């Protein structure tokens, strides 16, 4: 009798649990999927997400503070200084090493390096993981303009200085003119002597 009860209980259990399971999967079947079609749709990324860096190159002063702060030395930068302006050669970040610790962001005096929201680092070759964060190479157009302006100003200043000097010299010359007739004749003679 006990075994009969158990037998019927087993049959009931099997059927009942199957129907309960089917109700659950059926409920999920009718629900909207919770996944998104990734490359087309993306879930919102939190503001403080630490993704691939981006650099505000115009602000950067090539001070190497971020490179020094990096615990694994994955930041390298190179720029040629022309007075106040920079001619950029490279600013690379090796994402094979980078651990996205955000320590490079804090020491920046100009607040120009940031953690971005992009996180996909799929490449066909390891070497492609060394990202160049520069948006342009060489000098920025406005820096070029500024430099030209500075040069023009400098040239103007130099010219003014020269003119002032020339004027001064001329003034001094006119004073000496009366007394210097002999010296100029001397010079002519000297020249003539040289030619001969």
């Amino acid at each position, binding site marked *: 009798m006990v075994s009969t009860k158990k037998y019927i209980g087993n049959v009931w259990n099997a059927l009942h649990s*199957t129907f309960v399971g089917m109700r659950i999967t059926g409920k999920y079947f009718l629900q909207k999927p919770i*996944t998104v*079609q990734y490359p087309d749709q993306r879930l919102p990324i939190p503001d403080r997400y630490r993704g691939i860096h981006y650099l505000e190159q115009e602000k950067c002063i090539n001070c190497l503070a971020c490179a020094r702060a990096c615990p694994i030395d994955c930041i390298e930068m190179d720029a040629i200084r022309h007075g106040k302006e920079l001619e950029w050669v490279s600013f690379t970040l090796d994402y094979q090493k980078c651990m996205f610790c955000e320590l490079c962001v804090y020491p920046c005096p100009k607040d120009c390096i940031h953690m971005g929201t992009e996180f996909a680092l799929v490449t066909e070759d390891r070497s492609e993981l060394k990202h160049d964060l520069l948006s342009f190479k060489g000098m920025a157009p406005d820096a070029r303009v500024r430099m030209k302006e500075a040069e023009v100003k400098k040239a103007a200043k130099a010219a003014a200085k020269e003119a002032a000097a020339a004027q001064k010299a001329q003034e001094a010359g006119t004073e000496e003119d009366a007394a210097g007739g002999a010296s100029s004749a001397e010079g002519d003679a000297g020249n003539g002597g040289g030619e001969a």
Partner: protein
Amino acid sequence: MFALVQNGGGVLAQTPNEGTNFLHELLLWLPLPEWIPGWALVLGAVGAGVGILVGLVSFIALWSVWMERKVSGHMQCRNGPMYAGGWHGWAQTIADGIKLFQKEDMIPIGADRVLFVLSPAIVLASIFGALAALPLSYDWYFARMDLGIFTILAIGSTTTIGVIMAGWASNSKWSLYGAMREAAQVVAYEIPLGIALMVPLITLGTFSLLDASALQSGFFGMGWAIFQNPLCLPAFIIFWIAALAETKRAPFDLPEAESELVAGFLTEFSGIRWSFFFMEEYAAMFLMSVVGAVFFFGGFESPATYALRIAGMEGTIVFSLVCFGTLVLKAFTGVFLMMWLRWTLPRVRIDQVMTMGYKYLTPLALICVLGAAIWEAILHIVLN
């Protein structure tokens, strides 16, 4: 008793419309010139039949695989394939098929080459054979078989031989384990499958799929066997569990249990041969669903066919199309149910499979048959 079985569906019995093979009718209808010899016509008809079957099996496999991926995806709150072909990834299976055709065809060094090459062919041939006994509509069939269900079950179970051949020929222990499990499982579940089918057979009193369908055309096409006899519902549940085990579907996919046996009997197969087994699985699902639909859920009969019959459209091409559509709809509802069960239940252990087959389904199926026979006898006495 036997007379009762023969007369079981007498209450609702009506003579099914007589007809011939639709390929034969097609040959008669086509304006063929006189000089074509008879054997060429026969060959052409056979070719057309094979073409229809191949097309049917390919379509079923393509559609069911896509459906399976979408159903499983949505049951797990995913989308399933979304890109191939544009609209909801409809061309995903076609892309998969092209990939499979291009794959290297590998035969392991230690394998028995003859059996290895032959086994996918046998598996596919047996399912083609079983599908050939399937009527597509009241007047679309390859052969009018009075023992249609016997033919389907007998030819359909030869797939097991192909599977065992595949497992043995692969020369791999995983494959052999899979094949042995398949053998044990099929032997255990053929019994409740056949016995559970006896219940609608008693109710309807016929072995022919066409007659069984015609006998279920009650009010609004709802004179289904499942409404004619209360024992048909438990019998259907038993039939369905056994059908899942027969078609190697989860939770009974022990022959290819991927977490234990790599891929069971499929381990050593690749490319096109593997895809033959895959096609067989989905065609077998469709076949079992059709058998269930015909013998429990009215076959071609539905409110739509009832309405057409009232409108006097019986025998027209529209009626045949509606019958075909009804059957396909019911069959794919069954396929969906199989998928639903697959993505609901975890795989059972082999000893649980055996216990379920021998200790539970077989005796319960026998009780159902006895109950159905008694019900029919009482009905017979009360109505006369």
